[in-house]
């Protein structure tokens, strides 16, 4: 990655765009945004060297509020777009954002495979256990029995456990944060960024407008930091904590080393664009 010489200390404001966030007052996503500003400040990123990719949803609007490059894609295709950006330009930092619907419903398949690839990016899911932008339908992380416009008699499905899913699919950094604790969240994001490989951070980010069950209050009552002695390299121990309903643990569940997809790509590259003519002529000859 290209680095400034000499490195200039940036302010948090340099990461803010001129577009003001349009979330409802009290939306959890403000906390996440602040944590993101803070994390970028801590990493002292040059805004033009960062790409923020997102899908569609209230949460996915976040790139508009950040002064970096951004891609506000289509619903659920966040990971593939981010993958394209990553592999095309590994020297840029890629931060990825989405809602629980975007990531775990329509995007579930891509999520599974992006983790399997161990792409070197940080995926922050703003999990409010509801579809905010479309005005309050059940999401994959909504609890069983949860009543919404789309499940008026209660959600007949079990909630998805994003932590367990991520661990099972080979994400090499799996963490959970809470938008009410932006400072801690910023630290998690920094750790995710510093991790070489796929870092997934599920963030409880309540939607006060449409979700009256998963609220700041309800989360405050049920979250707890992971025990200090948790060995984050132990997959099964991570699973065990991830499997807990109460408390809902916050912190880094899993972190392990593995070669990234980008490293594999680089390793397989035997030449660069300069070789094009030679390679082509060789192929032409092979066919004649």
């Amino acid at each position, binding site marked *: 990655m290209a680095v400034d010489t000499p490195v200039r200390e940036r302010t948090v404001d340099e990461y803010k765009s001129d577009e003001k966030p349009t979330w409802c007052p009290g939306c959890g996503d403000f906390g996440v945004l602040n944590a993101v500003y803070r994390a970028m400040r801590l990493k002292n990123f040059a805004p033009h060297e960062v790409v923020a990719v997102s899908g569609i949803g209230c949460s996915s609007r976040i790139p508009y509020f950040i002064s970096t*490059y951004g891609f506000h894609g289509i619903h659920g*295709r966040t990971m593939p777009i981010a993958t394209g950006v990553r592999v095309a330009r590994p020297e840029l930092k890629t931060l990825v954002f989405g809602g629980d619907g975007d990531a775990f419903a329509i995007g579930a398949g891509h999520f599974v495979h992006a983790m399997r690839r161990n792409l070197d990016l940080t995926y922050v899911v703003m999990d409010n256990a509801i579809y905010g932008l479309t005005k309050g339908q059940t999401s994959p992380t909504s609890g069983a029995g949860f009543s919404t416009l789309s499940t008026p008699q209660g959600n007949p499905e079990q909630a998805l456990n994003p932590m367990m899913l991520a661990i099972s699919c080979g994400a090499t950094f799996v963490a959970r944060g809470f938008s009410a604790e932006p400072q801690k969240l910023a630290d998690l994001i920094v750790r995710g960024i510093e991790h070489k490989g796929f870092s997934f951070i599920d963030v409880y980010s309540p939607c006060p407008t449409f979700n009256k069950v998963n609220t700041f209050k309800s989360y405050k009552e049920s979250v707890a930091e992971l025990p200090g002695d948790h060995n984050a390299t132990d997959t099964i121990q991570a699973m065990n904590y991830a499997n807990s309903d109460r408390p809902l643990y916050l912190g880094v569940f899993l972190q392990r080393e593995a070669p990234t997809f980008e490293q594999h790509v680089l390793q397989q590259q035997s030449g660069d664009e300069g070789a094009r003519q030679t*390679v082509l002529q060789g192929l032409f000859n092979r066919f004649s």
Partner: protein
Amino acid sequence: MVQVADVASRAREGTEVNPSERGSLAIRVAGEAGEGIKKPGELLIQAATRAGFQVLTDFIPPSEIKGGVSFFQLRLGSRPLFTRGDSPDVLFCFNQEAYEVNIQELEPGGLLIYDPGAVIPSDRDKGQFQLLAFPVEQIAAKDLKMPIVKNVVALGGMAALFGLETSHLYQLINELWARKGDAVVQTNYRALEAGIKFMEDNFSADVRARFVLQPAKTETESMVVSGNQATALGAIAAGCTFFAGYPITPASDIMEFLAAVLPSVGGAVIQAEDEISAINMIIGAGYAGKRAMTSTSGPGLSLMVEAMGLATMAEIPVVIVDAQRAGPSTGMPTRHEQGDLFLCAYGGHGEVPRIILAATSVEDCFYLTVEAFNLAEKYQSPVLLMTDTVVAVRTEGIAKPDLSKIRLEHRVTWEPDPDGSQTKGASDSGSNGAVQGTDNTVAGNNGVAGAKDAAIPFDESESGYRRYRLTEDGVSPMAIPGTPGGQYVAMGLEHNEKGRHRPDPRTHTQMTEKRFRKFDLAGKDAPDAVRYGKPDAPIGIVTWGSTAGVAIEAIDALAAEGIDACLVAPKMLLPLPDQQLGEFMRTKEHIVIPEVNYRGQFADILLAKYPRPAVRVNVYGGQPMLVSKLTETLRRVAAGEVTDGRTVISPIIGRLEDLVTPDDLLAPVEQR
């Protein structure tokens, strides 16, 4: 003219094949599905090409992995070839099933070569065709003590049949097997010799004379590639460095070819988890500055519809190759149809313009892929390249491309003012690394090179980079991530010039017009159409894709009868290039539009723009259109019997039509 010996078939209807006179010879080699017959076939093709023959082969993969029957058909010419030929002059069968399935398609009076150890021809066929028992298995196993070389024995026989200068074969065998040691090379030499000798000993020269062809020495060096290989080569030539795809027949080998090669030019190929992922990956890469591509077939393309709209809206250059197969749905994965044009043209919600190219030949696959990238870059837009099973799968000998003549078009990029005043964090110098034409960059916010503002008011007070600036030609300079000061958000929402969501009426009106301005302009960059026949002929054929080749051969057939027809086959289908089609459509006495589909999809698009009487010719059996069937229809047009409307023709040749009973049709050959 060559005199030939009396053969049983001659009596039948007084016809006999005479490839020598005709200048082209079609040989079908049929055996078990699998790779056994493929390699010797390829050798023969390569040798024939080196010897100066025109070659065109079609390898129709069986619909089932094993147990089906596959065949490839090799056509050799003293003159250019445009189709694989309606029916083979020579049929070479390795086993009984191959014989039974293919014999009905052999040209009357044609030559059946078979291994007597494996095939027992029927008495009826003995009376209709010329027969030659060629015990390849026995020669290989008994004489050479190497059963595995039976295919090379066959190869030698075939080469001797049509008079191929065999030195090319020896050389190729050497090239191919040298690294396996001299013993292997020598064994294959011997097999080849044995095959040649058998043919010379058992099939007299005067009989063979009918099959002997003169090579058509050309100046240019040729190479033999399939359409898919040509597409992959075209992508490399176009500077593609990012490919994502998902396996699907008949497109998979584009991905497979590139997977082997792109890393050697600093590129990457990703096998995505599905087609939706594949296209979104290339959109991400295209946004990030790469020349990116995917390839697929109908079912995959259907899944890409939403993301193609995103690429249009976010104005990101990407290339999508659709190697059409027969639909709808999973349909017939290994069969041919030109059925995806509507999807390519109109498959998108909202008002989404589409630039579409279509390859008429293997050579087109190469050059149009380059063209697709150029258009994508120039208009910052997805570009669709349509091929079809015929052209994707068949191989042709084509002239080696002259790379020095290939011109690459690069997107107009945005660069910060040299003084950096426009940029936040101005001291940063981001690594850019994107593929860029240096004279295509636009400096700062007010630079105008390559991007004149349209006469549309905008807010002068808006400072900074405007990604979606409303320009005269609709093209706005694009900042590549990493460029200091160019930060913007690419998006599928409607947006203002700066890339902010604005759903007001004027923004949407202006931006819709911007997107269509680019589209309309692209028509001016249409690659030259295929034109054939006497330009002033009263019958004008308009078609697209591989059916253009069928039309060319039909025109030749008619010319022999004194009927004039001419062809225009545009290589850009949307926007319809008026400069290529307008006059033709307005002035021809008859317009004939042959297509391998049911509705006449191109005819619909064409006639909507140029309403007039026209004869649509449609066939939809999963097979390429037959030259003879099209010729028949054109003859009727010439006679004034048909002047308008839709003519449905048969997908199979007459003889076969007569022969098949309903039984055959409901339990068809492929499934036996």
